[in-house]
Protein backbone atom coordinates (compact mmCIF):
# COMPACT_ATOMS: atom_id res chain seq x y z
CA UNK A 1 0.00 0.00 0.00
CA UNK A 2 2.75 2.39 0.95
CA UNK A 3 4.46 1.99 -2.41
CA UNK A 4 1.22 2.13 -4.42
CA UNK A 5 0.12 5.40 -2.84
CA UNK A 6 3.66 6.82 -2.98
CA UNK A 7 4.10 6.02 -6.67
CA UNK A 8 0.60 6.45 -8.08
CA UNK A 9 -1.02 9.29 -6.11
CA UNK A 10 0.63 12.67 -6.63
CA UNK A 11 -0.03 16.01 -4.97
CA UNK A 12 -2.69 17.87 -6.92
CA UNK A 13 -4.15 14.71 -8.47
CA UNK A 14 -7.82 14.04 -9.03
CA UNK A 15 -8.52 10.87 -7.06
CA UNK A 16 -11.62 8.68 -6.99
CA UNK A 17 -11.71 6.43 -3.98
CA UNK A 18 -15.06 4.85 -4.78
CA UNK A 19 -17.28 2.29 -3.11
CA UNK A 20 -20.96 2.60 -2.34
CA UNK A 21 -21.37 1.80 1.35
CA UNK A 22 -19.34 -1.39 0.92
CA UNK A 23 -15.73 -1.73 -0.22
CA UNK A 24 -14.70 1.78 0.75
CA UNK A 25 -10.93 1.64 0.96
CA UNK A 26 -10.21 3.26 4.31
CA UNK A 27 -6.78 1.62 4.22
CA UNK A 28 -5.85 3.73 1.19
CA UNK A 29 -7.42 6.89 2.63
CA UNK A 30 -5.34 6.46 5.79
CA UNK A 31 -2.17 5.87 3.79
CA UNK A 32 -2.88 9.05 1.79
CA UNK A 33 -3.21 10.93 5.09
CA UNK A 34 -0.03 9.36 6.49
CA UNK A 35 1.94 10.31 3.41
CA UNK A 36 0.58 13.86 3.76
CA UNK A 37 -0.58 14.15 0.17
CA UNK A 38 -1.82 17.64 -0.60
CA UNK A 39 -4.23 19.54 -2.86
CA UNK A 40 -6.14 16.48 -4.02
CA UNK A 41 -9.41 16.82 -5.88
CA UNK A 42 -11.39 13.98 -4.34
CA UNK A 43 -14.29 12.48 -6.27
CA UNK A 44 -16.97 10.17 -5.05
CA UNK A 45 -20.75 9.83 -5.07
CA UNK A 46 -20.87 9.43 -1.30
CA UNK A 47 -17.86 10.97 0.40
CA UNK A 48 -18.40 9.51 3.84
CA UNK A 49 -16.12 8.93 6.82
CA UNK A 50 -12.97 8.23 4.78
CA UNK A 51 -13.40 11.58 3.05
CA UNK A 52 -14.31 13.34 6.31
CA UNK A 53 -10.99 12.06 7.66
CA UNK A 54 -9.05 13.20 4.58
CA UNK A 55 -10.73 16.61 4.67
CA UNK A 56 -9.89 16.98 8.37
CA UNK A 57 -6.29 15.99 7.66
CA UNK A 58 -5.97 18.76 5.08
CA UNK A 59 -5.46 16.46 2.11
CA UNK A 60 -8.37 17.71 0.03
CA UNK A 61 -8.61 20.92 -1.99
CA UNK A 62 -11.79 20.18 -3.90
CA UNK A 63 -14.64 17.72 -3.59
CA UNK A 64 -16.66 16.38 -6.53
CA UNK A 65 -19.68 14.57 -5.10
CA UNK A 66 -23.40 13.93 -4.81
CA UNK A 67 -24.03 13.05 -1.15
CA UNK A 68 -21.71 14.12 1.64
CA UNK A 69 -23.33 12.56 4.68
CA UNK A 70 -22.80 9.92 7.31
CA UNK A 71 -25.23 7.35 5.88
CA UNK A 72 -27.94 6.45 8.35
CA UNK A 73 -26.50 8.81 10.97
CA UNK A 74 -26.57 12.39 9.67
CA UNK A 75 -24.01 14.98 8.63
CA UNK A 76 -20.27 14.80 8.14
CA UNK A 77 -18.86 17.16 10.72
CA UNK A 78 -15.38 17.79 9.25
CA UNK A 79 -16.93 18.38 5.83
CA UNK A 80 -19.33 20.86 7.43
CA UNK A 81 -16.50 22.70 9.21
CA UNK A 82 -14.60 22.97 5.93
CA UNK A 83 -17.59 24.32 4.01
CA UNK A 84 -19.11 26.51 6.73
CA UNK A 85 -15.92 27.80 8.40
CA UNK A 86 -13.06 27.05 5.99
CA UNK A 87 -11.43 24.83 8.63
CA UNK A 88 -8.78 23.45 8.42
CA UNK A 89 -8.82 24.94 4.92
CA UNK A 90 -11.37 26.12 2.35
CA UNK A 91 -12.99 23.34 0.36
CA UNK A 92 -14.09 23.88 -3.21
CA UNK A 93 -17.26 21.98 -4.15
CA UNK A 94 -18.50 20.60 -7.45
CA UNK A 95 -21.85 19.05 -6.73
CA UNK A 96 -24.13 16.69 -8.64
CA UNK A 97 -26.84 14.15 -7.86
CA UNK A 98 -26.06 10.42 -7.84
CA UNK A 99 -27.33 9.94 -11.39
CA UNK A 100 -25.22 12.89 -12.50
CA UNK A 101 -22.08 11.36 -10.95
CA UNK A 102 -22.96 7.94 -12.39
CA UNK A 103 -23.32 9.57 -15.81
CA UNK A 104 -20.01 11.38 -15.40
CA UNK A 105 -18.20 8.10 -14.73
CA UNK A 106 -19.96 6.36 -17.65
CA UNK A 107 -18.93 9.16 -20.01
CA UNK A 108 -15.43 9.11 -18.56
CA UNK A 109 -15.13 5.34 -18.90
CA UNK A 110 -16.49 5.31 -22.46
CA UNK A 111 -14.52 8.45 -23.45
CA UNK A 112 -17.72 10.29 -24.43
CA UNK A 113 -17.99 14.12 -24.47
CA UNK A 114 -21.05 14.17 -22.18
CA UNK A 115 -23.81 12.01 -20.81
CA UNK A 116 -27.55 12.81 -20.84
CA UNK A 117 -29.66 12.27 -17.72
CA UNK A 118 -33.38 12.68 -17.35
CA UNK A 119 -32.96 14.60 -14.11
CA UNK A 120 -32.37 18.11 -12.71
CA UNK A 121 -35.62 19.52 -14.13
CA UNK A 122 -36.91 22.01 -11.57
CA UNK A 123 -33.88 21.53 -9.32
CA UNK A 124 -31.53 24.36 -8.28
CA UNK A 125 -28.50 22.09 -8.76
CA UNK A 126 -27.78 23.29 -12.34
CA UNK A 127 -27.66 26.85 -10.98
CA UNK A 128 -25.27 25.84 -8.21
CA UNK A 129 -23.11 23.93 -10.69
CA UNK A 130 -22.96 25.42 -14.20
CA UNK A 131 -21.28 22.26 -15.49
CA UNK A 132 -24.73 20.65 -15.43
CA UNK A 133 -26.12 21.94 -18.73
CA UNK A 134 -29.27 21.57 -20.75
CA UNK A 135 -29.16 20.77 -24.47
CA UNK A 136 -31.69 20.28 -27.21
CA UNK A 137 -32.09 16.70 -28.39
CA UNK A 138 -30.82 16.44 -31.97
CA UNK A 139 -33.69 14.03 -32.69
CA UNK A 140 -36.74 15.91 -31.43
CA UNK A 141 -38.11 18.77 -29.36
CA UNK A 142 -36.95 17.33 -26.09
CA UNK A 143 -34.48 19.19 -23.91
CA UNK A 144 -32.23 17.17 -21.67
CA UNK A 145 -29.59 17.85 -19.04
CA UNK A 146 -26.08 16.61 -19.66
CA UNK A 147 -23.05 16.16 -17.43
CA UNK A 148 -19.36 16.19 -18.41
CA UNK A 149 -17.12 13.11 -18.34
CA UNK A 150 -15.12 12.45 -15.19
CA UNK A 151 -11.61 11.12 -15.78
CA UNK A 152 -9.70 10.92 -12.50
CA UNK A 153 -5.92 10.62 -12.47
CA UNK A 154 -6.23 7.71 -10.06
CA UNK A 155 -9.02 5.37 -8.99
CA UNK A 156 -8.59 3.37 -5.79
CA UNK A 157 -11.04 0.49 -5.65
CA UNK A 158 -11.50 -2.08 -2.94
CA UNK A 159 -12.69 -5.57 -3.89
CA UNK A 160 -13.14 -9.01 -2.44
CA UNK A 161 -10.51 -10.68 -4.59
CA UNK A 162 -8.15 -10.40 -7.52
CA UNK A 163 -5.36 -12.38 -9.09
CA UNK A 164 -1.81 -11.05 -9.08
CA UNK A 165 -2.29 -9.50 -12.51
CA UNK A 166 -5.22 -7.42 -11.32
CA UNK A 167 -8.25 -9.25 -12.67
CA UNK A 168 -10.70 -8.18 -10.01
CA UNK A 169 -13.94 -9.70 -8.79
CA UNK A 170 -16.59 -7.96 -6.74
CA UNK A 171 -19.96 -9.11 -5.47
CA UNK A 172 -22.69 -7.46 -3.48
CA UNK A 173 -23.08 -3.77 -4.22
CA UNK A 174 -20.83 -2.94 -7.14
CA UNK A 175 -21.69 0.77 -7.14
CA UNK A 176 -19.63 2.49 -9.81
CA UNK A 177 -16.41 0.51 -9.17
CA UNK A 178 -16.23 -0.66 -12.78
CA UNK A 179 -17.00 2.74 -14.32
CA UNK A 180 -14.54 4.54 -12.02
CA UNK A 181 -11.80 2.07 -12.99
CA UNK A 182 -12.32 2.45 -16.73
CA UNK A 183 -12.64 6.24 -16.39
CA UNK A 184 -9.29 6.70 -14.63
CA UNK A 185 -5.74 7.03 -15.95
CA UNK A 186 -4.28 4.85 -13.18
CA UNK A 187 -5.98 2.16 -11.11
CA UNK A 188 -5.06 0.77 -7.71
CA UNK A 189 -7.03 -2.32 -6.71
CA UNK A 190 -7.04 -3.26 -3.03
CA UNK A 191 -8.34 -6.72 -2.15
CA UNK A 192 -9.29 -8.81 0.82
CA UNK A 193 -7.75 -11.87 -0.80
CA UNK A 194 -5.28 -12.59 -3.56
CA UNK A 195 -6.41 -15.68 -5.48
CA UNK A 196 -4.95 -17.80 -8.23
CA UNK A 197 -5.77 -16.80 -11.78
CA UNK A 198 -7.68 -20.10 -12.14
CA UNK A 199 -10.17 -18.97 -9.47
CA UNK A 200 -10.91 -15.84 -11.49
CA UNK A 201 -11.16 -17.72 -14.78
CA UNK A 202 -13.57 -20.27 -13.28
CA UNK A 203 -16.12 -17.48 -12.78
CA UNK A 204 -15.50 -14.76 -15.39
CA UNK A 205 -18.96 -13.18 -15.06
CA UNK A 206 -17.86 -11.84 -11.71
CA UNK A 207 -14.78 -10.02 -13.03
CA UNK A 208 -15.57 -6.30 -13.09
CA UNK A 209 -12.11 -4.90 -13.65
CA UNK A 210 -9.62 -6.54 -16.05
CA UNK A 211 -5.86 -6.58 -15.45
CA UNK A 212 -5.47 -4.51 -18.63
CA UNK A 213 -6.28 -1.30 -16.76
CA UNK A 214 -4.84 -2.12 -13.32
CA UNK A 215 -1.52 -0.57 -12.23
CA UNK A 216 -1.22 -2.02 -8.74
CA UNK A 217 -2.79 -4.79 -6.69
CA UNK A 218 -2.59 -4.37 -2.93
CA UNK A 219 -3.64 -7.10 -0.51
CA UNK A 220 -5.15 -5.58 2.61
CA UNK A 221 -7.48 -7.72 4.74
CA UNK A 222 -10.06 -5.58 6.55
CA UNK A 223 -8.94 -2.69 4.35
CA UNK A 224 -12.50 -1.44 4.02
CA UNK A 225 -13.34 -1.31 7.74
CA UNK A 226 -15.54 0.35 9.10
CA UNK A 227 -17.36 -0.13 5.78
CA UNK A 228 -17.80 -3.73 4.75
CA UNK A 229 -16.93 -6.42 2.25
CA UNK A 230 -19.90 -8.63 1.39
CA UNK A 231 -19.31 -12.13 2.71
CA UNK A 232 -16.12 -11.12 4.56
CA UNK A 233 -17.18 -8.70 7.30
CA UNK A 234 -20.18 -6.61 8.24
CA UNK A 235 -20.49 -2.87 8.29
CA UNK A 236 -19.35 -1.54 11.67
CA UNK A 237 -22.49 0.52 12.19
CA UNK A 238 -21.48 1.38 15.74
CA UNK A 239 -18.38 3.13 14.41
CA UNK A 240 -20.44 5.24 12.02
CA UNK A 241 -22.53 6.36 15.00
CA UNK A 242 -19.40 6.96 17.12
CA UNK A 243 -17.83 9.01 14.33
CA UNK A 244 -20.56 11.60 14.74
CA UNK A 245 -19.27 12.27 18.26
CA UNK A 246 -15.56 11.95 17.40
CA UNK A 247 -15.86 14.39 14.51
CA UNK A 248 -17.97 17.04 16.30
CA UNK A 249 -14.83 18.79 17.52
CA UNK A 250 -11.64 19.20 15.53
CA UNK A 251 -9.62 18.30 18.64
CA UNK A 252 -11.25 14.90 19.20
CA UNK A 253 -11.05 14.16 15.50
CA UNK A 254 -7.34 15.03 15.42
CA UNK A 255 -6.77 12.82 18.45
CA UNK A 256 -8.51 9.98 16.63
CA UNK A 257 -6.29 10.49 13.57
CA UNK A 258 -3.23 10.52 15.84
CA UNK A 259 -4.18 7.20 17.35
CA UNK A 260 -5.65 5.30 14.40
CA UNK A 261 -3.92 6.79 11.34
CA UNK A 262 -0.64 8.54 12.20
CA UNK A 263 -0.12 6.24 15.17
CA UNK A 264 -0.21 2.99 13.21
CA UNK A 265 2.30 2.03 10.59
CA UNK A 266 -0.10 0.38 8.17
CA UNK A 267 -3.41 -1.42 7.86
CA UNK A 268 -2.12 -4.62 9.39
CA UNK A 269 -1.23 -2.66 12.54
CA UNK A 270 -4.67 -1.03 12.52
CA UNK A 271 -6.36 -4.43 12.13
CA UNK A 272 -4.27 -5.90 14.95
CA UNK A 273 -5.16 -3.01 17.24
CA UNK A 274 -8.83 -3.37 16.25
CA UNK A 275 -8.85 -7.19 16.35
CA UNK A 276 -11.52 -7.83 18.99
CA UNK A 277 -13.90 -5.50 17.24
CA UNK A 278 -13.21 -6.91 13.78
CA UNK A 279 -13.81 -10.49 14.87
CA UNK A 280 -17.37 -9.61 15.86
CA UNK A 281 -18.10 -8.42 12.33
CA UNK A 282 -17.82 -11.79 10.64
CA UNK A 283 -21.17 -12.70 9.06
CA UNK A 284 -22.78 -16.12 8.83
CA UNK A 285 -22.60 -17.99 5.54
CA UNK A 286 -25.02 -17.57 2.64
CA UNK A 287 -23.60 -19.44 -0.36
CA UNK A 288 -24.89 -19.20 -3.90
CA UNK A 289 -25.64 -22.40 -5.79
CA UNK A 290 -22.72 -23.26 -8.08
CA UNK A 291 -23.49 -22.68 -11.75
CA UNK A 292 -22.24 -24.67 -14.72
CA UNK A 293 -20.29 -22.72 -17.33
CA UNK A 294 -19.83 -25.92 -19.36
CA UNK A 295 -16.65 -27.25 -20.87
CA UNK A 296 -16.32 -26.80 -24.64
CA UNK A 297 -13.50 -28.63 -26.36
CA UNK A 298 -12.38 -28.83 -29.93
Amino acid at each position, binding site marked *: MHAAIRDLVRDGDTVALEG*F*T*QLICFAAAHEIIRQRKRDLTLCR*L*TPDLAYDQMIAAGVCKKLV*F*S*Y*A*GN*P*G*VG*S*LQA*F*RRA*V*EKNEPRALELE*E*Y*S*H*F*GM*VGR*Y*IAGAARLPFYP*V*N*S*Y*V*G*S*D*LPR*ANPRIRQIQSPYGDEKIYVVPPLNPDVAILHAQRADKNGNTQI*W*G*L*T*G*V*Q*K*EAAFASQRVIVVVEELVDESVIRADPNRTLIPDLIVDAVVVEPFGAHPS*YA*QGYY*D*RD*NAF*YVEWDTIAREAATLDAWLDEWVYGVENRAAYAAKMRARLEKLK*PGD*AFAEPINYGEYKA
Partner: protein
Amino acid sequence: MNYSQNELMIAAAARELHGARVAFVGVGLPNIVCNLAQRSHAPNLELVYEAGVFGAKPARLPLSIGDPTIVTGAASVMGMPDLFQYYLQRGLIDVGFLGAAQIDKFGNINTTVIGDYKKPKVRLPGSGGAAEIAVLCGKILVITRLGKRAFPERVDFITSPGHLDGGDARKNLNVRGRGPEAVITDLCILRFAEDTREMTVTSLHPNVTRDAVQANIGWAVRFADQVETTAPPNAEELRLIREELDPQRLYSR
Protein backbone atom coordinates in the same frame (compact mmCIF):
# COMPACT_ATOMS: atom_id res chain seq x y z
CA MET B 1 -51.99 1.29 23.96
CA ASN B 2 -49.05 3.64 24.51
CA TYR B 3 -47.02 4.72 21.54
CA SER B 4 -44.68 7.57 20.64
CA GLN B 5 -45.39 10.25 18.04
CA ASN B 6 -42.55 8.80 16.00
CA GLU B 7 -44.09 5.32 16.07
CA LEU B 8 -47.41 6.76 14.95
CA MET B 9 -45.69 8.69 12.16
CA ILE B 10 -43.83 5.60 10.94
CA ALA B 11 -46.96 3.40 11.00
CA ALA B 12 -49.09 6.04 9.25
CA ALA B 13 -46.41 6.49 6.60
CA ALA B 14 -46.18 2.74 5.99
CA ARG B 15 -49.92 2.62 5.35
CA GLU B 16 -49.51 5.20 2.60
CA LEU B 17 -47.79 2.44 0.60
CA HIS B 18 -51.08 0.54 0.18
CA GLY B 19 -51.35 -0.62 -3.42
CA ALA B 20 -47.76 0.27 -4.30
CA ARG B 21 -45.81 -2.36 -6.25
CA VAL B 22 -42.31 -0.89 -6.43
CA ALA B 23 -40.92 1.65 -3.95
CA PHE B 24 -37.62 3.54 -4.12
CA VAL B 25 -36.37 3.70 -0.54
CA GLY B 26 -34.72 6.90 0.66
CA VAL B 27 -32.20 7.21 3.49
CA GLY B 28 -33.31 7.62 7.14
CA LEU B 29 -36.98 7.41 8.13
CA PRO B 30 -38.20 6.20 4.70
CA ASN B 31 -36.10 3.11 5.22
CA ILE B 32 -37.91 1.96 8.38
CA VAL B 33 -41.26 2.94 6.83
CA CYS B 34 -40.79 0.85 3.68
CA ASN B 35 -39.48 -2.11 5.68
CA LEU B 36 -42.49 -1.89 8.02
CA ALA B 37 -44.84 -1.87 5.02
CA GLN B 38 -43.13 -4.97 3.58
CA ARG B 39 -43.39 -6.80 6.90
CA SER B 40 -47.03 -5.82 7.53
CA HIS B 41 -49.59 -5.09 4.82
CA ALA B 42 -47.40 -5.25 1.71
CA PRO B 43 -45.33 -8.47 1.67
CA ASN B 44 -44.97 -8.24 -2.12
CA LEU B 45 -43.72 -4.65 -2.13
CA GLU B 46 -40.51 -4.53 -4.16
CA LEU B 47 -37.96 -2.40 -2.36
CA VAL B 48 -35.48 -0.60 -4.58
CA TYR B 49 -32.31 0.87 -3.07
CA GLU B 50 -30.18 3.35 -5.01
CA ALA B 51 -27.13 1.32 -4.00
CA GLY B 52 -28.16 -1.09 -6.78
CA VAL B 53 -30.77 -3.46 -5.38
CA PHE B 54 -34.16 -4.45 -6.76
CA GLY B 55 -36.48 -6.61 -4.68
CA ALA B 56 -34.66 -6.40 -1.36
CA LYS B 57 -35.80 -8.59 1.56
CA PRO B 58 -33.77 -7.13 4.43
CA ALA B 59 -33.45 -9.52 7.35
CA ARG B 60 -32.72 -6.59 9.69
CA LEU B 61 -33.35 -2.88 9.39
CA PRO B 62 -30.46 -1.59 7.33
CA LEU B 63 -28.94 1.38 9.20
CA SER B 64 -27.51 2.61 5.95
CA ILE B 65 -29.29 2.19 2.63
CA GLY B 66 -26.26 0.25 1.42
CA ASP B 67 -26.20 -2.32 4.22
CA PRO B 68 -25.18 -5.88 3.24
CA THR B 69 -28.57 -7.18 4.38
CA ILE B 70 -30.24 -5.55 1.37
CA VAL B 71 -28.07 -7.72 -0.89
CA THR B 72 -28.47 -11.17 0.65
CA GLY B 73 -31.76 -12.63 -0.59
CA ALA B 74 -32.57 -9.81 -3.03
CA ALA B 75 -34.12 -10.48 -6.44
CA SER B 76 -31.39 -8.56 -8.28
CA VAL B 77 -28.21 -6.70 -7.41
CA MET B 78 -26.60 -4.52 -10.04
CA GLY B 79 -24.26 -1.62 -10.61
CA MET B 80 -25.65 1.85 -10.04
CA PRO B 81 -25.65 2.70 -13.77
CA ASP B 82 -28.17 -0.12 -14.37
CA LEU B 83 -30.32 0.87 -11.41
CA PHE B 84 -30.55 4.52 -12.38
CA GLN B 85 -30.91 3.97 -16.11
CA TYR B 86 -33.05 0.86 -16.46
CA TYR B 87 -35.18 0.91 -13.33
CA LEU B 88 -35.57 4.57 -12.37
CA GLN B 89 -35.20 6.39 -15.70
CA ARG B 90 -37.03 3.61 -17.54
CA GLY B 91 -40.04 4.43 -15.35
CA LEU B 92 -40.46 1.18 -13.42
CA ILE B 93 -40.86 2.72 -9.97
CA ASP B 94 -44.31 3.77 -8.68
CA VAL B 95 -43.37 5.49 -5.46
CA GLY B 96 -40.31 7.29 -4.22
CA PHE B 97 -40.19 7.63 -0.43
CA LEU B 98 -38.02 10.54 0.67
CA GLY B 99 -37.01 12.37 3.81
CA ALA B 100 -36.49 16.13 3.86
CA ALA B 101 -34.41 18.56 5.89
CA GLN B 102 -36.68 21.31 4.57
CA ILE B 103 -39.91 21.10 2.58
CA ASP B 104 -42.00 24.04 1.48
CA LYS B 105 -45.62 24.92 0.78
CA PHE B 106 -45.49 23.23 -2.64
CA GLY B 107 -43.53 20.17 -1.58
CA ASN B 108 -40.14 21.26 -2.89
CA ILE B 109 -37.41 19.52 -0.90
CA ASN B 110 -34.11 20.95 0.28
CA THR B 111 -31.34 18.64 1.46
CA THR B 112 -28.48 20.85 0.25
CA VAL B 113 -27.96 24.04 2.30
CA ILE B 114 -29.64 26.22 4.89
CA GLY B 115 -28.88 29.77 3.82
CA ASP B 116 -26.96 30.83 0.74
CA TYR B 117 -25.40 28.08 -1.41
CA LYS B 118 -22.00 29.79 -1.55
CA LYS B 119 -21.94 30.74 2.13
CA PRO B 120 -24.25 28.29 3.87
CA LYS B 121 -25.29 28.58 7.49
CA VAL B 122 -25.66 24.81 7.54
CA ARG B 123 -24.23 22.54 4.90
CA LEU B 124 -26.48 19.47 4.47
CA PRO B 125 -25.43 16.23 2.71
CA GLY B 126 -26.91 17.07 -0.69
CA SER B 127 -29.07 15.27 -3.23
CA GLY B 128 -27.89 11.70 -3.34
CA GLY B 129 -30.40 10.20 -5.75
CA ALA B 130 -33.26 12.38 -4.54
CA ALA B 131 -33.15 14.94 -7.38
CA GLU B 132 -33.89 12.23 -9.95
CA ILE B 133 -36.14 10.17 -7.71
CA ALA B 134 -38.34 13.28 -7.35
CA VAL B 135 -38.51 13.61 -11.12
CA LEU B 136 -38.72 10.00 -12.29
CA CYS B 137 -40.88 8.05 -9.80
CA GLY B 138 -44.63 7.84 -10.43
CA LYS B 139 -45.28 9.76 -7.25
CA ILE B 140 -43.46 10.89 -4.12
CA LEU B 141 -44.22 10.36 -0.46
CA VAL B 142 -42.31 12.34 2.14
CA ILE B 143 -41.75 11.65 5.81
CA THR B 144 -40.25 14.29 8.10
CA ARG B 145 -40.86 15.76 11.52
CA LEU B 146 -42.85 18.99 11.64
CA GLY B 147 -41.02 22.14 12.70
CA LYS B 148 -40.84 25.81 11.74
CA ARG B 149 -37.37 25.57 10.26
CA ALA B 150 -38.21 22.34 8.43
CA PHE B 151 -41.39 23.81 6.90
CA PRO B 152 -40.56 27.27 5.50
CA GLU B 153 -42.85 28.93 2.97
CA ARG B 154 -40.06 28.63 0.37
CA VAL B 155 -37.04 26.39 0.73
CA ASP B 156 -33.59 27.97 0.58
CA PHE B 157 -32.57 25.60 -2.21
CA ILE B 158 -34.64 23.22 -4.33
CA THR B 159 -32.68 19.98 -4.33
CA SER B 160 -35.61 17.80 -5.37
CA PRO B 161 -38.51 19.49 -7.13
CA GLY B 162 -42.01 19.13 -5.76
CA HIS B 163 -44.82 21.16 -7.31
CA LEU B 164 -42.41 24.10 -7.82
CA ASP B 165 -44.54 27.30 -7.79
CA GLY B 166 -47.75 25.30 -7.51
CA GLY B 167 -50.63 24.92 -9.98
CA ASP B 168 -49.46 23.49 -13.31
CA ALA B 169 -45.82 24.51 -12.86
CA ARG B 170 -44.60 20.93 -12.74
CA LYS B 171 -46.61 19.85 -15.77
CA ASN B 172 -45.49 22.91 -17.74
CA LEU B 173 -41.86 21.92 -17.23
CA ASN B 174 -42.66 18.41 -18.51
CA VAL B 175 -41.49 16.79 -15.28
CA ARG B 176 -42.31 13.12 -15.74
CA GLY B 177 -43.60 11.92 -12.35
CA ARG B 178 -46.67 13.35 -10.63
CA GLY B 179 -44.64 14.71 -7.72
CA PRO B 180 -45.35 14.72 -3.99
CA GLU B 181 -48.67 13.27 -2.91
CA ALA B 182 -48.45 13.26 0.88
CA VAL B 183 -46.19 14.45 3.67
CA ILE B 184 -46.36 12.38 6.81
CA THR B 185 -45.14 14.13 9.97
CA ASP B 186 -45.13 13.46 13.70
CA LEU B 187 -48.20 15.70 14.20
CA CYS B 188 -50.29 15.40 11.05
CA ILE B 189 -50.55 14.29 7.44
CA LEU B 190 -50.58 16.87 4.66
CA ARG B 191 -51.63 16.43 1.03
CA PHE B 192 -51.52 18.73 -1.98
CA ALA B 193 -54.63 20.57 -3.21
CA GLU B 194 -55.72 19.43 -6.69
CA ASP B 195 -55.73 22.92 -8.20
CA THR B 196 -53.13 25.03 -6.37
CA ARG B 197 -50.90 22.12 -5.29
CA GLU B 198 -50.57 23.80 -1.91
CA MET B 199 -49.78 21.58 1.06
CA THR B 200 -52.94 21.11 3.12
CA VAL B 201 -53.52 19.37 6.43
CA THR B 202 -55.86 16.44 5.81
CA SER B 203 -55.37 14.40 8.97
CA LEU B 204 -54.40 15.30 12.53
CA HIS B 205 -52.82 12.71 14.78
CA PRO B 206 -54.83 11.91 17.94
CA ASN B 207 -54.78 14.71 20.51
CA VAL B 208 -52.98 17.13 18.19
CA THR B 209 -54.60 20.55 17.78
CA ARG B 210 -54.66 22.78 14.71
CA ASP B 211 -52.74 25.40 16.69
CA ALA B 212 -49.97 22.93 17.46
CA VAL B 213 -49.62 22.16 13.75
CA GLN B 214 -49.72 25.82 12.72
CA ALA B 215 -47.11 26.69 15.33
CA ASN B 216 -44.71 24.34 13.53
CA ILE B 217 -45.28 25.53 9.98
CA GLY B 218 -43.73 28.66 8.47
CA TRP B 219 -46.77 29.90 6.57
CA ALA B 220 -50.54 30.11 7.23
CA VAL B 221 -51.26 26.49 6.46
CA ARG B 222 -54.60 25.44 5.01
CA PHE B 223 -56.75 22.74 6.55
CA ALA B 224 -58.95 20.49 4.43
CA ASP B 225 -62.74 20.87 4.71
CA GLN B 226 -62.86 17.49 6.38
CA VAL B 227 -59.85 16.91 8.59
CA GLU B 228 -59.58 13.29 9.68
CA THR B 229 -57.97 11.81 12.76
CA THR B 230 -54.98 9.57 11.97
CA ALA B 231 -55.48 5.97 13.08
CA PRO B 232 -53.04 5.04 15.85
CA PRO B 233 -50.52 2.25 15.23
CA ASN B 234 -51.89 -1.21 15.93
CA ALA B 235 -50.28 -3.84 18.14
CA GLU B 236 -48.63 -5.68 15.26
CA GLU B 237 -47.13 -2.49 13.80
CA LEU B 238 -45.75 -1.58 17.22
CA ARG B 239 -44.32 -5.06 17.68
CA LEU B 240 -42.60 -4.91 14.30
CA ILE B 241 -41.14 -1.47 15.00
CA ARG B 242 -40.00 -2.25 18.55
CA GLU B 243 -38.86 -5.85 18.28
CA GLU B 244 -37.79 -6.35 14.68
CA LEU B 245 -36.98 -3.06 13.00
CA ASP B 246 -35.75 -0.59 15.59
CA PRO B 247 -34.84 -2.36 18.84
CA GLN B 248 -32.19 0.31 19.48
CA ARG B 249 -34.86 3.00 19.09
CA LEU B 250 -32.88 5.10 16.63
CA TYR B 251 -35.94 6.24 14.72
CA SER B 252 -38.98 5.48 16.82
CA ARG B 253 -38.28 6.69 20.35
